[in-house]
């Protein structure tokens, strides 16, 4: 009974916590510019994420190590530090985008510009982390995040032709704007396969004291939770394909991403979009801040736990405090969160290899994983993800310049 409850909660958490500014903007841009043609990118991104999240949870449950713990032990300090620098820089950019997303949502609701919201929002995010426990934050934000299911309702209300949409699940090339198509595809993959999610998930498994008996729970959460989450992203793309693509409206600004919802719900669409984004970005901001703090604490061997009061893990708490408050600074000076989002998604894609290659070694380590090592299916999938990630690493920056 307890396990069923945990699976349910885990799925709810995954669904409620799946969408954030990156996944929404990239899906909306994709739908607006290319109709259903880029659904395959969300499908592939979600499939990759399912495997990576399942492995992150399995590593934690079996070895009682988080990914960062195991990476530091196996690969040593120099390698860990290089990965730390890369991952933290990119995650910090994503955090700026999420805090900016909250600010933009509040701007839609109140008319007050997002730079004014940057400091109050970052203080609120910080305060919830300062006072809240891991369970309260994770579950609370994710339960509220279920409001993002309104994107699915919105897409259905716009009466898509499902058979046309299904054709978008197979990759095709557009007739023109190939660079832009490539750039958005890369950005969707960067938004889906976010390394910070893996680090957060494995740390959460340790916080929740998972052991080998949770392997089944982990698999259920990864498959069902991430699948439902992927469906949410697809709904955003489909709604944009219906509401924006026929009229040639591109999504370059945050408020343009709201147009599909206002088409589906003329009265409440804008409010629903703004509240959904506010909650989704809030959850993501907390996750990313924790992921960065976990990275430092686990790598350097400090006390860490979101369930302890801050003075009991002072360095861990100081790291997330500095990270969150610093993320407000560029926004106060008016840096556009939408631009930061697109750059950070491309950079996430570019830095995927350094996150995933060590992971392949860890999942095959008999000392950590015992009989729960990767089988040939998982290894093949990770190998394909690594190939995709190297390809993304090579093409994402040029595409950002040409097509972004």
């Amino acid at each position, binding site marked *: 009974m307890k396990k069923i409850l945990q699976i349910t909660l885990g799925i709810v958490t995954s669904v409620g916590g799946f969408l954030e500014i990156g996944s929404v903007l990239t899906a909306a841009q994709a739908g607006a510019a290319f109709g259903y043609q880029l659904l395959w990118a969300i499908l592939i991104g979600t499939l990759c994420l399912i495997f990576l999240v399942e492995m992150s949870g399995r590593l934690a449950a079996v070895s009682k190590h988080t990914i960062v713990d195991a990476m530091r032990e*196996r*690969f*040593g*300090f120099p390698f860990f530090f290089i990965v730390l620098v890369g991952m933290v820089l990119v995650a910090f950019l994503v955090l700026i985008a999420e805090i900016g997303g909250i600010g933009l949502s509040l701007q839609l609701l109140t008319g007050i510009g997002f730079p004014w919201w940057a400091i109050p929002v970052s203080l609120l995010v910080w305060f919830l982390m300062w006072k809240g426990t891991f369970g309260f934050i994770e579950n609370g934000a994710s339960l509220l995040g279920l409001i993002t299911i309104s994107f699915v309702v919105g897409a259905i209300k716009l009466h898509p032709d499902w058979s046309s949409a299904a054709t978008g699940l197979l990759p095709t090339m557009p007739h023109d704007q190939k660079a832009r198509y490539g750039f958005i595809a890369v950005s969707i993959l960067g938004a889906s396969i976010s390394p910070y999610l893996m680090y957060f998930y494995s740390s959460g498994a340790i916080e929740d004291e998972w052991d080998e008996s949770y392997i089944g729970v982990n698999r259920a959460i990864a498959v069902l939770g991430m699948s439902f989450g992927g469906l949410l992203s697809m709904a955003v793309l489909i709604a944009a394909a219906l509401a924006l693509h026929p009229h040639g409206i591109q999504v370059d600004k945050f408020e343009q991403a709201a147009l599909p919802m206002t088409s589906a719900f003329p009265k409440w669409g804008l409010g629903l979009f703004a509240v959904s984004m506010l909650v989704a970005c809030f959850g993501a901001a907390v996750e990313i801040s924790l992921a960065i703090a976990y990275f430092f604490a686990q790598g350097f061997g400090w006390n860490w736990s979101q369930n302890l009061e801050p003075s009991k893990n002072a360095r861990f708490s100081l790291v997330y405090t500095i990270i969150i408050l610093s993320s407000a600074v560029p926004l106060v000076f008016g840096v556009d969160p939408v631009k930061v989002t697109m750059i950070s998604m491309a950079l996430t894609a570019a830095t995927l290899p350094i996150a995933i290659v060590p992971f*392949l*070694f860890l999942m*095959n*380590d*008999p*000392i*950590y994983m015992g009989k729960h*090592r990767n089988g040939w299916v998982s*290894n093949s999938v990770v190998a394909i993800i690594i190939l995709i990630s190297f390809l993304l690493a090579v093409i994402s920056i040029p595409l950002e310049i040409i097509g972004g």
Partner: protein
Amino acid sequence: MEINVELLLGTNVRDVDGDDIGRIEELRVERDEKALLVDAYLIGASALIERLSAWTLVRPVTRFLNSRKLYSVYRVPWQDMDLTDPLHPRLRISKRDLRHVP
């Protein structure tokens, strides 16, 4: 004389004739009451694979490529290693007298 073991890792080792052997990747030790006693140094590419516990990944690849090159691990007993210059470790014996680790 005191040596920082973590800085010894990855340093290139030459034999008594000046030939390259490989890099120090691992140290085999035995526990004593008050210290760890160094039994041997593992040198070579495969020693790194051993240290990363990566044989389950690498073996299928080497079998597929039919490559023997990766299986070069030398086990150097502590008596045969000269660490008076820790930045340039040398063997006290020749390469041909070294033992391969199976």
